[in-house]
């Protein structure tokens, strides 16, 4: 009996050590994670104790699973949380995020929301709660430093006429730099925004990682844009059998035409890219 107890204790301790070591090892790596939140967007950037969340997906709470799986169980602090715009499939999960994580900097959607929505009201309630240390609205030319990441906001410009651009068109376009690697996240921006960005010269001519805007909607199918940014990898966050038909075949054709390999969260679940291993 005593022998059985000793063997059990050894097995338990080994299992515990392996589990914790596995988590610890993973949390040490610098990673870009495109969370599988169904039909919506949630992107995580993690490096040691720096944890950045861009959008929180829909209200279905899928983002909590991604955070639980990808972040250290001992670190409940998000250095930056950007709500790119007011659509429910981007900010619906904000409340569930706020239940478990404190937010150092909350970046609220530019120009608020076009119409009253529960998701937006909940986000504003979160911004007023004591779990958020600081909240603000940013615009192009603003930069957030969250070492080792640099987040450059490329869109919308400070003087953008809010009434002429809808929620999607006011999405933040964010370029994130990690050493010599560049990533581009565009929320639900469409081809109008893409054209203006090209004209402004704010975009680089090459991006390592690119999350296709608006889940691959045909509104974001701009050949000139893909020819300009020449992404090395593209990622599409869309739900399986979603009613909108995302990603649109036109977008997939464009990616193929420009030889951009792409991955869908609907096919593989959470996409985890180890930025130190590239």
């Amino acid at each position, binding site marked *: *009996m005593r022998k*059985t107890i000793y063997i*059990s204790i050894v097995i338990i301790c080994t*299992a*515990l050590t392996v*589990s*914790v070591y*596995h*988590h610890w090892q993973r949390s040490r790596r610098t990673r870009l994670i495109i969370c599988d939140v169904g039909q919506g967007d949630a992107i995580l950037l993690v490096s040691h104790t720096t944890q950045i969340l861009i959008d929180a997906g*829909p*209200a*279905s*709470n*899928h983002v*909590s*699973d991604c*955070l*639980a*799986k990808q*972040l250290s*169980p*001992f670190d*409940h602090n998000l250095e930056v949380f950007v709500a790119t715009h007011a659509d*429910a*499939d981007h900010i*619906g999960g904000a409340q*569930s995020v706020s*239940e*478990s994580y404190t937010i150092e900097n909350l970046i609220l959607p530019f120009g608020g929301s076009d119409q009253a929505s*529960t*998701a937006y009201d909940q986000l504003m309630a979160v911004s007023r709660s004591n779990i958020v240390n600081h909240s603000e609205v940013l615009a192009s030319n603003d930069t957030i430093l969250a070492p080792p990441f640099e987040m450059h906001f490329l869109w919308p410009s400070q003087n953008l006429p809010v009434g002429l651009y809808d929620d999607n068109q006011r999405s933040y376009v964010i370029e994130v730099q990690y050493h010599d690697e560049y990533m581009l996240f565009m929320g639900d921006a469409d081809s109008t925004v893409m054209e203006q960005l090209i004209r402004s010269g704010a975009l680089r001519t090459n991006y390592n990682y690119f999350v296709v805007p608006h889940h691959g909607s045909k509104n974001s199918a701009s050949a000139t844009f893909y020819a300009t940014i020449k992404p090395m990898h593209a990622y599409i966050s869309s739900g399986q059998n979603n009613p909108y038909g995302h990603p649109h075949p036109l977008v997939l054709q464009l990616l193929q035409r420009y030889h951009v390999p792409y991955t869908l969260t609907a096919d593989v679940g959470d996409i985890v890219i180890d930025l130190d291993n590239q």
Partner: protein
Amino acid sequence: MKKYLLIFIGLICLVIVRLLIFKEPWQDGDIISTRLLVSSEPSRKVVNGQTYATIWAYQNGRKIGLRLPYDQVVYGDSIQVQGKISLLQSNVGINHSWWLEPDTYTVHPSQTVLLPVSQARSYAIRQVNRALNPQHAAIVNGMVLGSKQSITPRLDQLMRETGTMHVLVASGFNIMLIVSLCLICLSFVPRRWSIVITLVIVLVYVLFVGIEGPIVRSAIMAGISLAAFLLGRPKHVLPLFLITILSMLLYRPIWVFDVGWQLSLAATAGLIWITPILLFGYNKIKEFIWQKPIKHQHLAANDIFESFDQVMFSTIAAQIAVFGIIILNFEYASIASILSNVLIAWLVPVITIVGMGGVITMWLNQLIGSLIFKLLVPILVLFTNILSLIANQNFYRLDLQSWDNYQVYQFYCLLIITVLIGHYMIYKDSQSNKTI
């Protein structure tokens, strides 16, 4: 024993009368106006991007479900509602509950003892959420507070795939734990008083986690056991078990058709009567292999958590007992569920005990409470890793759609006969040991 027999016969008669006078008060499609008490935590569901609370309430023994916006209703509220009511049919074709589509409703915050209880419960859930990551918090909230509101979609899927959803409820184990802790802590108080205080604490805990089948059954069982102890009577598992079932059926006959209630009942019966047979067989095999007599373990139901063997066999026993009900209602059985239940069985008490300690400490000092929860993290990591590992394997899933009700009844008849033979063999074996 004669007194027990009289109580049984009396209760059986009362249940039969209750079932005979049990008639549905509404017709399918009626428009009704009623007031419902939210007597357990509403479950959270997202429909078309909107978050709703699914509420199950009881009225005159009938189970009524309805859906309202999530942030408008909490445990303890009462709802004045008018709407169309329709009959729900279960997988086995028995009408046992109603669904209400509300046209108009007013939510009245609780004015009773449930208000402070509900507030205390919300506070505890919030604190657990802040101390642990979303999946870990959902596990602790489920096991300690019986709350499923913070369960995440992937954890939900994981637990369903591995057949372990039943561990995310406050159950008989929690009651057993509270009773033991109270009796130990109150050992300096006269026995009569310590038992009364314990009963009050059990009642408060039942209100705290929500008035649901498994916890109410366990509380009644604990209550009867403690009352028997108070009166200086010996404890009989079988009579207590039957009295519990009959008392509950007398209170809500509709529970006969409730799958959750059937599962918890079958699992408890499995723990009490199948575990000793499995342990007996296991010891006999060991004797046969090593060719020397093994010291027989004490096989009382109270001692099932004493050793790893007992934990393992009690888990398997519960799985065997619920097998038929699962086939009848879900039409499949998975080998993964037996494996996962055996592997996590020893983690559940640890998480429940430490989690309960953390929740109590949170009231006294948040920092210390939070530290206690941090101690749980490695165990919770291991818990989720075990389940993920099993879920990722393509275990053979027995498709038993062809089984009909008749075959399930045959399964249970066979099981009862096996259990009787098993217990007879244990009895004979103990007699022969005495003779030696």
